[in-house]
C-alpha cells in the first residue's frame, strides 16, 4: 500500500513556481454576464416538462380524443338522436349498423355513449369553472386581507363544506326536478371550498415573499398586487386543481345516476348508461362495458394529466 500514499502540500512546504508561467486569464465583463441558454418563459418550461412525461401526454391524447368524439361522435353512426327508438332492433350486440349495439329499447349505444360523454364532460367542466370563479375570489380575498375577515370567511366555508353533498343533493332534487343545472348547482355548492383553500394557502405563501414587499414599497395598489403579482403565481396550481376536479365530478355524477338521482330519461350521461347497462349485465355485458370503459379512460386520463401538470408546474414537488 506504500505506493498508494499520496503527497500532500502542507502549510510549511514551499512550492517553486516559474514566474513566467503565471499569466492573467483574460476577463470580459460583457461575456461573463451573457446568458447562453434560450429565453424560456414559465409556460414554455412547463410544456417542455410535461412533454417529457409520457403518461401525462397519453392522458392528454385520450382526453382530446374523447372530447372530439363527444362532439362529432353522435353524427358518425346514422342519426344523432340519442332518444330515437327502434324496438325491432333492441338489445343488439355491436355490429355493422350499430357500432356499439343497441340498448333494451333499441337506442343506438354509439350515439348515446358519445352524447353521454358530452353531457358528463359539460357538467364537469361547468362545475370546475364555477369552482374556479367562486373559489379563487373567496380564497383570494380571505388570504390577501387576512385577519378577522379571514377567520370569519374560513368558518363559513368550513360550515358549507361540512354539509354532506349527497344529503344536500337529495333535498335539492326533491324540491327541483333533476336536470343538468340542478346537478351542476348541487355539486358546485360545496365543492368550491376545496379550490378556495388551495388559493388561500397559495396567497398566504406568496404574500410574504419579498417581491410582494418590493411592489408595496414601490406603492403598488392592492389590485395590482393581486392581479399582477399573486394571481400569475397561483395559476399553475389552479390548473392542477381543475384537472383533478373534473374527473371527480364525472365520478360523482355517475354515482348519483347509479342511485337513481341522475338526469331524467331519455338524457344520457356516462353514469346513466352504466346504471342502465348494469340492469342487463349478465345477458348483454356490452351495455355496461362500453360506457364503463369510456368513463374509466376519462378518469385515468385526467388523473394522469393532473399528475403530470403538477410535476410540470412545480418540479420540486415530485
Amino acid at each position: 500500500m506504500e505506493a498508494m500514499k499520496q503527497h500532500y502540500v502542507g502549510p510549511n512546504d514551499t512550492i517553486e513556481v516559474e514566474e513566467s508561467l503565471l499569466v492573467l486569464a483574460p476577463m470580459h465583463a460583457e461575456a461573463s454576464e451573457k446568458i447562453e441558454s434560450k429565453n424560456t418563459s414559465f409556460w414554455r418550461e412547463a410544456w417542455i416538462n410535461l412533454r417529457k412525461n409520457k403518461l401525462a401526454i397519453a392522458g392528454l391524447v385520450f382526453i382530446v380524443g374523447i372530447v372530439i368524439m363527444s362532439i362529432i361522435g353522435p353524427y358518425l353512426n346514422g342519426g344523432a338522436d340519442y332518444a330515437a327508438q327502434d324496438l325491432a332492433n333492441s338489445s343488439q350486440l355491436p355490429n355493422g349498423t350499430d357500432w356499439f349495439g343497441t340498448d333494451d329499447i333499441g337506442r343506438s349505444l354509439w350515439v348515446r355513449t358519445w352524447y353521454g360523454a358530452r353531457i358528463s364532460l359539460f357538467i364537469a367542466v361547468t362545475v370546475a369553472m364555477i369552482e374556479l370563479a367562486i373559489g379563487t375570489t373567496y380564497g383570494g380575498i380571505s388570504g390577501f386581507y387576512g385577519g378577522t375577515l379571514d377567520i370569519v370567511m374560513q368558518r363559513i366555508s368550513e360550515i358549507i363544506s361540512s354539509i354532506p353533498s349527497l344529503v344536500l343533493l337529495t333535498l335539492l332534487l326533491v324540491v327541483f326536478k333533476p336536470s343538468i343545472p340542478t346537478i351542476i348547482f348541487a355539486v358546485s355548492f360545496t365543492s368550491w371550498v376545496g379550490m378556495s383553500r388551495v388559493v388561500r394557502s397559495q396567497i398566504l405563501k406568496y404574500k410574504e415573499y419579498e417581491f410582494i414587499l418590493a411592489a408595496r414599497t414601490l406603492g403598488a395598489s392592492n389590485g395590482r398586487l393581486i392581479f399582477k403579482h399573486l394571481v400569475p403565481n397561483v395559476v399553475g396550481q389552479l390548473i392542477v386543481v381543475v384537472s383533478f376536479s373534473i374527473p371527480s365530478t364525472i365520478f360523482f355524477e355517475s354515482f348519483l345516476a347509479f342511485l337513481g338521482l341522475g338526469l331524467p330519461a331519455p338524457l344520457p350521461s356516462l353514469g346513466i348508461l352504466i346504471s342502465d347497462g348494469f340492469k342487463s349485465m349478465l345477458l348483454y355485458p356490452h351495455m355496461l362495458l362500453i360506457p364503463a370503459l369510456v368513463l374509466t379512460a376519462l378518469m385515468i386520463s385526467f388523473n394522469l394529466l393532473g399528475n403530470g401538470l403538477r410535476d410540470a408546474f412545480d418540479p420540486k414537488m415530485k
Partner: protein
Amino acid sequence: MAKEKLVEVKNLKQHFKVGGGRVVKAVDDVSFDIYKGEVFGLVGESGSGKSTTGRSIIRLYDITGGEVKFDGQVISGKIKGDLKRTLTREIQMIFQDPYACLNPRMKVVDIIAEGLDIHKLAKNKQERLEKVYKILEIVGLTPDHANRFPHEFSGGQRQRIGIARALITQPKFIIADEPISALDVSIQAQVVNLMQKLQKEFGLTYLFIAHDLSMVKYISDRVGVMYHGKLVELADADELYAHPLHPYTKSLLSAIPEPDPIYERNRQRIPYTADVHDYSQEGPEWVEIRPGHFIRANKAELVAYEKQLADKK
C-alpha cells in the same frame, strides 16, 4: 454639525401580537438620525430587530409608537396620499433574498419598470424601454437581459436587477436589508462596490442592514448596534471599531474572522449575556458619551465606560 438630517427616527417602537396575549417587542424605543449622503450601518444578530426597523421606516409595518421623519416631514402613522406617493418614489428598498425578491412570472423589463408604471414616470413605451435599458447598463447588465425571466439569472445578477428596480424612481434614500448576506463572497464585493458607485453617482443615502461586521465597516460612515430590539451603541464606524464600549459590541467585534490562520487559532471570543448588566437599581438610558458616540447604559456603567475611554487614550 453642519450635516443635514435626512431621516430621523425617534423612540420607534414596533410590537407584534403573537397570540395568547403575548407581545414581541421587535423594536423597542430606538432613536437615531441618518444624515444626507451617508451610509448608516445597522448590525446585530438574527432577531435583533434590524430588518424590522428598516421595514417600519419604509411603512411596510404600522408602527406601534414613536415617530419617523423624512426630509423634515413626519412619515409615520396616518399621512396624506400625496406624501405617500412621494415617499414610495423617494424611499426604496433592496432585499435580502435574490431568489424571492423578483416575481418569477414577470420579465426583467417589467420588474424594473414597475416603479415607472405605478408612478406613470414614462410618457410612452419607448421612453419606458429606454429608461430600463439605461438602468440595466448602470448596474452592469445588458439590454438583451430585459426580455428574460428571473430564473435565468445568477444570484448576483438578480440582486443587481433588484437594485435597478429600486433605482428607477430616482430615490433619495435606500434601505438595503442584508443585500449581500445571501450572496457568494466574490459576488458580495461586486454588489457592495456597485452600491458605493451608485451612491456617489446619484448622491444616495443608505441604511445598510447587515450582520457581516467587516462588510459594514467597509461601507458605513456610522454604525448602530442592535440587541434584542434596542440600540445599544452608535458611533462613527472607525470610532466604534477602535473603541467599542458596550460589552455586546465588543462581543460582536471579537467574532470577526481574520484571514490569518495563526490569529484564528488563538482567537479569543468574548461571550455576551445580558446578565452582565445590573439594571436592578437603575435602568439604562441612551447617552452621548463622546460627541457622536452614543451608548445605552446606566450611571454606574457610564463611569466605567468613561474610565475605559480615558485609559485607552
